[in-house]
């Protein structure tokens, strides 16, 4: 089955991310995704939205809209996420590599996993700065038909 395209806009904030995730997953209900597929969708979207909340609209003074749009295609879900916050450093998205874990305990990384998870779990991820907006587009390889 093919889902109708859907989308919504949230106002940047950490609790808004939770709200967006549950809204998005609710729309995927008819696909009857298994726990792994649901986990992939929720993780990728959580990392993308958390990055926007943290870096595009840094607290305490900045907030703004984040739009999430999804189109269901034969090869998966095409997700477009847009915000009007700060551009990514150097106009590029991070490559998302894990750092070595073969280090002293005090040097273990406490961050930098987000882009790795996005790049690892999503396909065809692209980023463009269009005017004053960040456009992130990706394909989640689930719900084939």
């Amino acid at each position: 089955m093919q889902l109708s395209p859907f989308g919504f806009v949230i106002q940047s904030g950490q609790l808004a991310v939770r709200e967006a995730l549950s809204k998005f997953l609710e729309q995927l209900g008819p696909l009857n995704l298994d726990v792994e597929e649901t986990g992939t969708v929720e993780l990728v979207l959580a990392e993308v939205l958390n990055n926007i909340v943290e870096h595009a609209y840094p607290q305490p003074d900045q907030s703004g809209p984040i739009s999430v749009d999804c189109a269901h295609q034969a090869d998966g879900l095409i997700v477009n996420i847009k915000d009007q916050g700060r551009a990514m450093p150097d106009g590029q998205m991070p490559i998302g590599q894990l750092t070595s874990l073969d280090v002293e305990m005090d040097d273990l990384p406490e961050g930098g996993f987000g882009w790795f998870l996005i790049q690892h779990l999503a396909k065809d991820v692209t980023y463009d700065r269009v005017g004053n907006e960040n456009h992130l587009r990706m394909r989640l390889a689930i719900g084939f038909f």
Partner: protein
Amino acid sequence: MELASKTEEQLRIVSVEGSRIDAAVAIEFKDAMRVQTDSGPDLVVLDLSKVDFIDSSGLGAIVAAMKHMGQDRKLALAGLTPTVERVFKLTRMDSVFSVFPTLEGALAELKAQ
């Protein structure tokens, strides 16, 4: 972010009572872990069986909690649900912690040591 804890035979069990360790509660989780682990046994088992979602901020908070406990103590993880386990595997953080499928299994093995 509620944590419940009890101490059994030189081992502290800290159970996460919420279903998510995400960016919204990561700092709160880190602070609550400090309260639970600043004193007490050197061996702590973090029971994650009620947690069905963790993001990179939550993962970072668990790493921070372990680092805060110091070199001479140990933080083991138990009861990872599928999505939580996947995040640890993908980031290879499962190689940094002792990970047990169930709390019962963790206690049996750790108490025998």
